[in-house]
């Protein structure tokens, strides 16, 4: 149905672009007439994988929201600083009031882990939102306007896609002169922009030639309304799924950035990735400093991934047979 499938040229083109385009095509199902969400939900409700993912995600979000009240200590306060001795006892162990002990600055580890969920969610959500916003703007422009706007936007996207994503994120973070949590967010968001843009454009193009858009045109509906009321909402499916998955990768990527020393240098507000990144310096004698945040990351990333993957499967028209 969709243009890219019909156009044989794309079948021998850049693979990465093509993969995105194919994903985009999942927005027009074999039976696009059936409400995607409704039918997807019907199947998801009974899918244990999805439910586990959903449970983890909900738990995580709730934790992030209430953690400041849960945490016994202020995560930036260092109640155990007196015990910290660079040489002899750099990382205080568990004791009364500090069930997991402290970190290398005498801060309560449990509190930091709890409150860390909030910042982790923050980074994940904002990185995804920014990436999504950038992708939406570019993708909508390209998908709606076609012509030279489309070409220009897509060339830009192509250049961005020609660098492996994570490498691009590292470069952006490394090349920003003032590292902060926002550089992390922007670095991770930037690598999502071309993916979202291309995804959305592909899926908009698929919508553009679909009969219901044709019908709206035939009705004399004005083009802006067609784009925003008909094309965009129907094109969002794959984008939303991708966004769920990006939430997972964003958290992992943030950790990688921190590990390379490119993360947010200010660690008063803890973030799991950053905690993990910093803890690698102590991995020989105090591996628990790394293991706790790593486990948190793994579980949450897994939650988002399980949810995203099962969403994708549910939205994929092929699996609806």
């Amino acid at each position, binding site marked *: 149905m969709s243009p890219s499938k019909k156009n044989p040229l794309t079948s021998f083109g850049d693979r990465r672009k093509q993969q995105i385009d194919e994903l985009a095509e999942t927005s027009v199902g074999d039976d696009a007439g059936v409400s995607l969400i409704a039918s997807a939900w019907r199947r998801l409700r009974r899918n244990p994988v999805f439910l586990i993912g959903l449970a983890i995600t909900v738990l995580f979000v709730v934790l992030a929201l209430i953690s400041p009240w849960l945490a016994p200590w202020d995560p930036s306060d260092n109640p155990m600083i007196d015990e910290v001795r660079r040489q002899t006892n750099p990382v205080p162990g568990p004791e009364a009031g500090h069930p997991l002990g402290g970190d290398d600055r005498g801060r309560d580890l449990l509190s930091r882990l709890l409150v860390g969920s909030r910042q982790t969610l923050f980074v994940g959500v904002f990185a995804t939102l920014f990436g999504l916003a950038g992708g939406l703007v570019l993708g909508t422009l390209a998908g709606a306007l076609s012509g030279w706007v489309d070409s220009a936007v897509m060339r830009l996207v192509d250049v961005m896609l020609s*660098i492996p994503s*994570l490498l691009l994120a590292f470069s952006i973070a490394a090349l920003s002169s003032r590292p902060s949590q926002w550089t992390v967010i922007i670095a991770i968001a930037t690598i999502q922009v071309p993916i979202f843009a291309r995804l959305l454009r592909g899926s908009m193009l698929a919508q553009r030639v679909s009969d219901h858009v044709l019908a709206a045109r035939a009705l004399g509906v004005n083009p802006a309304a067609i784009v925003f009321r008909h094309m965009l909402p129907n094109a969002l499916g794959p984008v939303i799924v991708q966004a769920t998955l990006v939430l997972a990768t964003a958290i992992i990527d943030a950790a990688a950035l921190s*590990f390379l020393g490119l993360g947010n240098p200010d660690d008063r507000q803890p973030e799991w990735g950053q905690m993990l990144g910093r803890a690698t310096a102590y991995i020989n004698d105090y591996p628990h400093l790394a293991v706790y945040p790593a486990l948190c990351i793994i579980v949450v*990333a897994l939650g988002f991934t399980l949810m995203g993957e099962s969403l994708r499967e549910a939205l994929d028209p092929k699996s609806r047979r």
Partner: protein
Amino acid sequence: MIRFIVRRLIQMAGVVLVLSLLLFMWLRSLPGGTVSAILGERQTPERRAALEAALGLDQPIWVQYGKFLERAVHGNFGVSTKVLPGTDAFEVFLMRLPATIELSLLAMLIAVSLGIPLGYLAAKRSGSVFDNSAVVFSLVGVAVPVFFLAFMLKYWFAVEWNILPVSGRQTVGIDATRITGFFVLDGLMTREWDAAWDAFKHLILPAVALATIPFAVIFRITRAAVLDVLDEDYVRTAEAKGLTSRVIRGRHVLRNAMLPVTTTIGLQIGALLAGAILTETVFSFPGLGDALAISFRDKDYAVLQVLIMAAAAIYVVVNLLVDISYAIIDPRVRTR
């Protein structure tokens, strides 16, 4: 076909050129870099100025870019300040390339040789316990931060159990002749079996860590592709012909399922470079990833620029190779 390759190569040149310009402008607009690296605490405005003048950094940026291009044409891409100080960045690239290729090849080999068979089996038994656990396992593989996994592997296999070396490419003191820069290959070529085996042992842990994500992705693509192909009418046709399951598996299922898998392998090869930054750092493995990590941290801009451009070029070339191999396996593309 030739047209197509030419087209892609021209595109690649374009991308690399645009990238070089963007990177150049960006890097030069950043503070620090070379000057800071050389002067350290000893920096004063005068020394700074002198050094900048000596390095031509005080000239307008387009003049600098022009000079950069001019030098680049002659194979000089600027000198590394941190990774291999004093060496031309492109030479650094060439020197570090074999290590990363060696590592990526092994990683890819692991990912492919596990991912494809497991993916096929999982699809064949879709819904079974094996399938479900394999899927969850692969998702966990994606969720574990690569560098953390690398640390764990290193901790258990190298530090605790001491079965494999901790870091590097070759044990100090082993007699090894360098020919190609591929240590394992060199060892085999010169019949220095010790050296080859030692170099190979150094590859194992980083390769395993590096392989997790490609493995997970390849596994799941294979599984999805096989599932899809199993549903195809032509498989039903093959069944209706009463063909043996061996023929059906090989000729009808796998050959078709390999198409998307090939694509994915290509993409993952490109992406390996980014993963290598993390694994090579953890294992202090002197490859491109390690070089990149160092230049990120210590702002070795010359190396950074060359490596990012090279990464883009490699990515495009790998993609091109995938496309060509695609043409070889997919007659619909080949015969167009």
